[in-house]
């Protein structure tokens, strides 16, 4: 269900009105007798105010850096900026809505280039019906599946972006769902993006998805299937096993007949400076994705998460080699007198490779360690791509108070000069994030 901006605004105003009522109710409530969660009639409302400052450091390698070196201003790069958001939630009478309003202020290379953006969106807005063992819902809704953390091959509906710097509420997909639950098993059938046209790609594609779940003591079993409007069938399975008091192990695998991707035309078509973008939508055939991982938690509240995965939907090693060769070729053209604007534009097109898949490389290893110490949680994680020895290293610390949470961190990309991660547009990002719940 796609909502027009006007309808989104109406729904948001509804949430805002409820929040105002909530604030009034909180002001008059007897805290000894009233629950902290706020209910107005049969409506329950809550929310969060968030602010974040991000300080990116632009990479000096990679196609966008090259493009701007050839001709300044060709490619837009990340700039420092502040973001303020208000998230409002309302639930009642079978309806759920989550709305976000965002104000963003980004610095530019000069005062004239500074940007201020205001936008709002509905994270969720759906109606649900409880028919006992059967549950139905329709609207924009978050439907997250699979057992992994850094990668989820069977997240067939939401296809949520993983490893964001700060976890915030996802933006749901238009869905119609029918689910059946009993004591130890569950079945879910979801029509996602039901009104989208056949040219919608990736997570926007219209599809039917199904999940079966079975609980067997210490083991959770999942089976998945999806029929995409143009990508066709895919099947998958996942398992999560609590092996001991401290150890949980999980695995997930998926086979897809086709997946949407992007590819650079090959062979003699790609030679010299082009007038059209060589990166076009493509479809990969017979794609396999698999993940294994586990968590270990010590009684001292020190935790380690480790995962390794293969993502057959990512660009192949040969494609990345060709990409690197093309970057080098374009750089040579710049020194040979080719028109700077044309060379810079061609280099900027090369950045499209970064968005071809949720993983940059097909083989990946991820390790995260965190330690809960009262209100403080420091954490460090590393994503490593063995094919080119690229690394993304993140360090963060979170402080959780009664209602206020503050976190700060930094993420840096490294590796040898040929590593894809070193050539991403942003080499490092530092951030501070605070949120207050009401």
């Amino acid at each position, binding site marked *: 269900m796609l909502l027009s901006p006007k309808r989104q605004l109406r729904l948001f105003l509804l949430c805002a009105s409820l929040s105002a009522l909530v604030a009034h109710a909180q002001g008059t409530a007897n805290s000894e007798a009233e*629950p*902290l*969660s706020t209910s107005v009639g049969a409506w329950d409302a*809550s929310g969060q105010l968030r602010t974040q400052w991000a300080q990116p450091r632009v990479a000096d390698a990679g196609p966008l850096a090259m493009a701007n070196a050839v001709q300044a201003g060709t490619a837009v790069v990340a700039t420092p900026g502040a973001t303020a958001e208000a998230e409002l*939630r309302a*639930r009642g009478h079978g309806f*759920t809505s989550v709305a976000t309003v965002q104000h963003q202020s980004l610095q530019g290379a000069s005062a004239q280039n500074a940007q201020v953006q205001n936008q709002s969106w509905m994270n969720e807005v759906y109606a*649900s019906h*409880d028919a*006992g063992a059967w*549950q139905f819902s329709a609207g924009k809704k*978050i*439907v*997250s*599946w*699979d*057992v992994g953390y850094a990668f989820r091959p069977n997240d067939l509906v*939401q296809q*949520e972006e993983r490893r964001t710097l700060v*976890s915030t*509420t*996802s933006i749901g997909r238009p869905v119609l769902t029918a*689910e059946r*639950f*009993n*004591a*130890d098993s*569950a079945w*879910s059938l979801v029509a996602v993006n039901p009104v989208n046209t056949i040219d919608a790609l990736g997570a926007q594609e219209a599809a039917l998805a199904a999940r079966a*779940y079975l*609980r067997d*003591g210490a083991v959770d079993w999942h089976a998945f299937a999806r029929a995409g409007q143009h990508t066709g069938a895919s099947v998958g399975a996942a398992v*999560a096993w*609590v092996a*001991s*008091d*401290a*150890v*949980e192990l*999980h695995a997930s695998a998926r086979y897809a007949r086709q997946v949407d991707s992007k590819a650079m035309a090959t062979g003699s078509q790609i030679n010299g400076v082009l007038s059209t973008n060589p990166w076009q939508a493509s479809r990969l055939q017979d794609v396999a994705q698999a993940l294994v991982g586990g*968590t270990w*938690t*010590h*009684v001292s*509240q020190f*935790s380690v*998460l480790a995962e390794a995965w293969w993502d057959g939907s990512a660009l192949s090693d040969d494609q990345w080699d060709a990409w690197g060769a093309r970057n080098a070729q374009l750089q040579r053209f710049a020194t040979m007198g080719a028109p700077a604007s044309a060379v810079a534009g061609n280099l900027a097109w090369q950045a499209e490779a970064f968005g071809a898949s949720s993983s940059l490389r097909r083989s990946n290893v991820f390790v*995260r360690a*965190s330690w*809960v110490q*009262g209100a403080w*949680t420091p954490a460090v994680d590393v994503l490593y791509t063995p094919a080119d020895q690229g690394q993304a290293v993140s360090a963060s610390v*979170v402080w*959780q*108070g*009664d*209602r206020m*949470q503050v976190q700060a961190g930094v993420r840096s990309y490294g590796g040898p000069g040929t590593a894809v991660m070193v050539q991403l547009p942003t080499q490092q990002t530092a951030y501070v994030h605070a949120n207050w*719940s*009401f």
Partner: protein
Amino acid sequence: MKFAPPWLVAAVLAAALPGGALAQTPDVATMLKAADKFRASADNLQVETQITVLNADGSQDKERRYTVFAQAKRQSLVLMQSPAEKGQKVLMLGDDFWLLMPNSQRPLRITPMQKLLGDASTGDVATLSWADDYTGTLLGEEPCEAAGSPTKICWHLSLAAARKGVTYQRIELWVGKARFEPIKADLYVLSDKLAKQATFVTDKPSAPTMVTEMVLADKVSNHKTTHVRYLSRKDRVVPETWLNPMFLVKTPNLE
């Protein structure tokens, strides 16, 4: 992975049945079952629980509110109600645990150790069932001081963990001599270190029928005091679908 605080408190279910007058020659198993009844009066309950953590100087550190559906066979569904945790849910089916975080709406299977992330032992104290989880030895009669009432003679029991997954390996428990209501407890972790001291507040000190509050003094790290208050209890059997881990994404009707 940062998990919610002392949600397990949940289970706490503190309800309470009148602890009736009991046998004159106490049997340890009987005493433990009777003591449990002062906290959980029925097999199936809906309990509103509030946890207030106080700093060493008495100032409030944080307050949390939970709705707990405690069901038979050690099954509990916990809904976090405080603003900072709103939307988080925990499902406990025996020794199996799942967590739902509202941002991603995805039930996560977690280990017994992960369930302790946050205010670890608070939750475990709340969920432990002495009769089911511990074997006890009667050490004899001792004077003990109940919360808000003068010193009286109590039974002193020493409890040893009988199953894996409990936070406290040893508990020294004092119960009332006539009704076996819990009065105070010393809680020891695996290293046999005293972690917390618990005192139990009852509805009627002279003739208690239920525990209304548990006060936990931290003896290890931050010297904070945690007050676990049972705001309301009512008998409630929830549909079996609510105890399905995948149902965590749904919003149960609290009425």
